[in-house]
């Protein structure tokens, strides 16, 4: 019987894998049509995308670099989502975190790296947490929609950064709208002489911590409960409002941390518009990863790979990077079709394929059903 169950599982796996491959193939095909319509050779483009995303050690590192901020913003969205909150504001929180982190990096007196870097990262977290906390407080105190407020604060953050880099944080003596370069003690070291920096590992560690926090701690349990049924959580005496505020802060903080990690790992100084929409992409990353911290790692890598592949393609063919937005969008849509729409058909197919196996296994299933009798 064990054998049969195992082979039933194998069948299910095979079907799943086949459909997944089919999905990807269809998405790529649709993308190819669009490319052809736009006058780019799809074959060459795909080759280049693959090379740019995973074709060499260098491009894999680049993919990891790109995945880093996406993972942070994805985690930010996921965390709030698990508490039933929609944080569309990772973009703004990311900027705020970058700003406060940069402030800590630039304005503190010289410190050894072991102190300075963690402090700056913490300040990045706090900046984002502040921005998220405003929304959380308005939600808890006034019942104001967090969707609107996070969107509004995204714009406010962008203008705030624009102000900061042109006035108070502007590089002394410089004329450009940018801060001075961050001191070496506040910069995330890079590895193997590439751009891959420790921020990536920090992001992975954050995802793991978050997974543990959500699933293994009492606080995570409170958060998930409130996310699944807020009213019941209130009735059962969970501190729902306090948690909503805290969750918005942590969610903002995660994005903020991502913001500082990005500038401490890559840019090394604060500029306006440094984020090409990491915050918004984070939503897709989070949801494609099932709002699950570990799932987010996978989807962040996928998105990171697409971005760096896109860049490679763009450089060689001269095709617009926007093509990759299109392919990305199609891929998301197809993958969701596969997950949601075809789910029933897949189940039916698996059931059909395993019917022979099931017949003999039925006794076991019934035994489990009647556990209590």
């Amino acid at each position: 019987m064990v054998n049969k169950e195992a082979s039933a599982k194998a069948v299910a796996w095979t079907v799943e894998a086949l459909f997944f491959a089919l999905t990807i193939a269809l998405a790529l095909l649709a993308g190819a049509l669009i490319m052809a319509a736009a006058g780019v050779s799809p074959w060459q483009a795909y080759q280049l995308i693959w090379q740019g995303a995973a074709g060499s050690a260098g491009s894999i590192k680049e993919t990891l670099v790109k995945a880093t901020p996406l993972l942070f913003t994805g985690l930010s969205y996921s965390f709030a989502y698990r508490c039933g909150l929609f944080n569309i504001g990772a973009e703004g929180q990311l900027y705020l975190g970058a700003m406060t982190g940069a402030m800590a990096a630039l304005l503190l007196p010289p410190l050894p790296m072991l102190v300075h870097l963690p402090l700056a990262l913490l300040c990045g977290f706090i900046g984002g947490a502040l921005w998220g906390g405003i929304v959380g407080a308005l939600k808890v105190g006034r019942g104001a929609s967090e969707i609107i407020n996070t969107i509004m604060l995204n714009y406010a953050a962008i203008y705030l950064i624009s102000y900061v880099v042109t006035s108070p944080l502007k590089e002394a003596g410089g004329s450009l709208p940018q801060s001075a370069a961050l001191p070496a003690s506040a910069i995330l070291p890079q590895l193997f002489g590439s751009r891959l920096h420790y921020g990536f590992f920090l992001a992975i560690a954050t995802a793991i911590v978050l997974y543990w926090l959500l699933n293994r701690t009492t606080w995570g349990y409170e958060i998930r409960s409130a996310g699944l049924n807020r009213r019941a959580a209130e009735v059962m005496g969970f501190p729902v409002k306090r948690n909503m505020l805290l969750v918005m802060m942590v969610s903002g903080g995660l994005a903020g941390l991502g913001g500082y990690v990005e500038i401490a790992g890559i840019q090394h100084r604060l500029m306006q518009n440094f984020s090409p929409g990491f915050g918004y992409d984070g939503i897709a990353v989070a949801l494609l990863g099932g709002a699950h911290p570990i799932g987010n790692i996978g989807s962040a890598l996928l998105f990171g790979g697409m971005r760096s592949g896109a860049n490679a393609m763009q450089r060689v063919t001269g095709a617009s990077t926007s093509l990759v937005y299109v392919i990305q969008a199609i891929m998301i849509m197809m993958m969701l079709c596969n997950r949601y729409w075809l789910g029933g058909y897949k189940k039916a197919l698996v059931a059909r394929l395993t019917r022979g196996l099931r017949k003999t296994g039925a006794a076991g299933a019934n035994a489990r059903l009647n556990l209590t009798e």
Partner: protein
Amino acid sequence: KETAGGASDNGAGESGFKVALLTPGPVNDSGWNAIAYNGLMKIKDELGAKTQYSEKVTQSDMNEFIRGYATDGYNVIIGHGFEFADPMMAVAKDFPDTWFLVTSASVSQSPNVASISINNREQGYLMGTVAALMSETGTVAAIGGTEIPPITNSVKGFEEGAKAAVPDIEVLTTMTGSNDDIAKAKETAISLIEKGADVVMTNANQAGSGGIEAAKQKGMLAIGSNQDQNPNAPDTVVTSVIQDYPKAMSVVVKSIMDGAMKPEAQTLGVKEGAVYLAPYHGFDAKMAQEVKDKIAATVKALEDGTLTMKNE
């Protein structure tokens, strides 16, 4: 018409000299990025180089692009905007045989990083002069997009030029905070026109045409920036003050081809022929000779160095 596939390798390559351009925004923005694109085309056509460009390069991607082009054996890599300075200097160390050019910046690094910038203050000064002289209400307006040096310098120069030409002129200045949002540029211009301005200058890349559209709709005048914008609105755009990055770029690339390039920062202005007035087109007949003379005098003063100013 070109397609998005801008791999412009067709008519080039005999010389084997390869030039890559990176722009921060879309190259069809009729503004900052379009200028660089035109420069690249000029390099391709006049110098016979093989060219390639990447647009909308975000800050997190710059390093990757620059390194990619350098690895692919490009001889010159041009980063269009000060934001390319840091990554250029970082990558340049690993590719001593490649030249790295940054525009709108004043950085250099031996042996292979140089920068060119246009004296946007002078550009603004000329625009301000023309605007003030054309104004009947005594109020002129300058609208900027985002706060980046080419824009802020030109807005600043505009104010100085206008004041110098007509001492009691009132200059209204506003920033829209966006180089994408045409609607905002247009509404901002309308609000300034309604505050009394009758000549408007908008320097906000692709969104800039919103300002001209507003002036056209309200029957006011506009000064074009960066390239000749008269054809879009012949009865509105008096003239445009051109910052000739294309020329500057091709001159520099030529000197690299000739092996005469030095790693230094250059600023080019009216004197160097990189900033100049576009033709008046239809306004030639409508403008008083006295006005034209005054403008010409200002140009002259900038050319011979009696009037000097620097970018901030």
